[in-house]
């Protein structure tokens, strides 16, 4: 009974960490520009698929991981430079559709270059499950949790301590005022896309040994990360993290106790519930709209 619950919680926290990384990426771009970047999920896919391909080509695992994350980061920067920046003044709907167009382009390219097959990445620390109070946990799950924790701490340090991080925060609070004190808002947006792509790809790489990865996993991961961000209140870093973990745990509990067929519906039921009763998200600050 208890062991079963613990098992569900452990797997929930593992997948929830990935949702948290995706949600953090959504938040960073949303803060910098107000754009909801629907290509975010494709960076997760890109990280996983690129790492697998590099390993299969004979590159050593640690190097393949770093290279895969770097590739996704560059693609993120390219998306901002080529698709978002030229259309920056367009309508919100238009911008959303442009990010969706970019995500289809990335997915289509991966499909052409790497094929439709599902791949699995070798795990980082062996495949022998560890026993925790009767439940089992894969060593890879520990890698996932450790990586996510360090990323959250590093981001907190980046936004709290470095000049660049503070510049990004300032831009999200008030773009005009930030520009008046000499912050290059265009560069901040450029950086935000790169950073969010790196976060997504990192999530994609560390989860690839547990779940299979293929060209089409980005859509659902992206949507769930987006929902996780909404649960925490889009734009809040801690909210995104907690939202991701919460979503992962609730999803695992639903799959375990209610219905595995409806596991994928849970995030979307949850988000409607949250919007009806906590419209600012669980942790979003209350804002008044400027006229």
């Amino acid at each position: 009974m208890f062991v079963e619950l613990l098992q569900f919680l452990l797997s929930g926290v593992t997948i929830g960490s990935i949702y948290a990384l995706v949600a953090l990426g959504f938040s960073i771009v949303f803060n910098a520009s107000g754009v909801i970047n629907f290509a975010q999920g494709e960076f997760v896919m890109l990280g996983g698929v690129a790492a697998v391909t590099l390993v299969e080509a004979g590159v050593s695992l640690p190097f393949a991981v770093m290279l895969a994350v770097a590739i996704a980061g560059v693609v993120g920067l390219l998306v901002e430079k080529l698709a978002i920046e030229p259309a920056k003044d367009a309508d919100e709907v238009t911008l959303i559709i442009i990010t969706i167009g970019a995500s289809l382009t990335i997915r289509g390219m991966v499909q052409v270059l790497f094929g439709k097959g599902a791949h699995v990445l070798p795990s980082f620390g062996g495949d022998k499950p560890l026993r925790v109070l009767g439940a089992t946990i894969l060593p890879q799950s520990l890698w996932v949790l450790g990586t996510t924790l360090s990323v959250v701490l590093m981001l907190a340090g980046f936004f709290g301590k470095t000049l660049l991080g503070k510049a990004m925060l300032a831009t999200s609070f008030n773009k005009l005022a930030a520009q008046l004190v000499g912050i290059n808002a265009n560069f901040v947006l450029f950086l935000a896309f790169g950073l969010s792509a790196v976060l997504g790809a990192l999530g994609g790489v560390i989860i690839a040994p547990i779940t299979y990865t293929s060209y089409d996993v980005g859509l659902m991961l992206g949507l769930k990360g987006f929902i996780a961000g909404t649960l925490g209140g889009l734009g809040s870093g801690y909210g995104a993290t907690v939202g991701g973990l919460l979503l992962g745990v609730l999803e695992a509990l639903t799959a375990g106790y209610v219905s595995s067929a409806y596991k994928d519906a849970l995030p979307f039921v949850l988000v409607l519930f949250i919007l009806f009763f906590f419209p600012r998200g669980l942790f979003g600050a209350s804002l008044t709209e400027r006229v």
Partner: protein
Amino acid sequence: MTIEPRFRGLLVLGVVVLLLPFALPNSFYYDVAIRIAINATIAIGMNLLIGYTGQISLGHAGFLGLGAYGSGILTARFGWPSMLALPVTAIGTGLLAYLVARPILRLKRHYLAIATLGFGIIINIVIGNEAAYTGGPDGMAVASLSLFGVEVTGERVWYGLAAGVLVFVAWMMVNLVNAPMGRALQAIHGSEIAARVAGIDVAGLKVRVVVFSAVLASVMGGLGAHYSGFISPASSDFMHSIELVTMVVVGGMASVYGSIVGAAILTVLPQVLGRFEGWETMVFGLILTLSLMFMPRGIVPTLRLRLVRSEA
């Protein structure tokens, strides 16, 4: 005889619709034309929501799926006549749309995108899982449509029906956007607060538009299901919602004729791209991104602007 400028477009549309049968060589082209008309009608309804009122929906395929499966299930599994099944399904979809939209539309704009996205995906998952009623991932066969005891069959009859509905909805929309309600919707797009100050019931109007576009999608989804005789869960998935929004945005926001052009492009494109085995996703993505980067207003408004400039 002078025609009011706003009806000139309708006249062109009517002439095109009447002359098109003489240019359609075989039933394949009829099929494409019928599906363009069905999609265009849905897109016009969504344009009222997206283009005129400035609200985003990422879940309209869910409403379409409700209409298609509602009508399909009521006729096939419960033996209802299609003339009863279609309106009952439409009313049900409208009620659901009202229940979802009412609490959400008090909030800022991108929350409607999230809520409709969630709603659409829930509908899609339910359709995929409830195989006893929907046939699950394999889809289900749908009975043919009969109106007033006469079976609607044959490409010419279907073309007449679909094109007739399209022209009627376009006429209704051209009148609506120039009426006080249409102007109120455009005021909401400009600034919700200013619209409220001017005495417009912002939330109420937005809910009405959501319900209207959802009912239209539902009815056309039902008609489309009876027309093709088969439906699958893909008709209600997230990607189809995106295709519907794309018709509106690529064709031209706040342009009734833009929606028709957008629907025509998005309906024909997959047929053309089908030849590029494996490349179609990438080409579709590139076309979508590039067309919006270079024509952020959409095709029809951009061309119209260029025409006006060259005249002046």
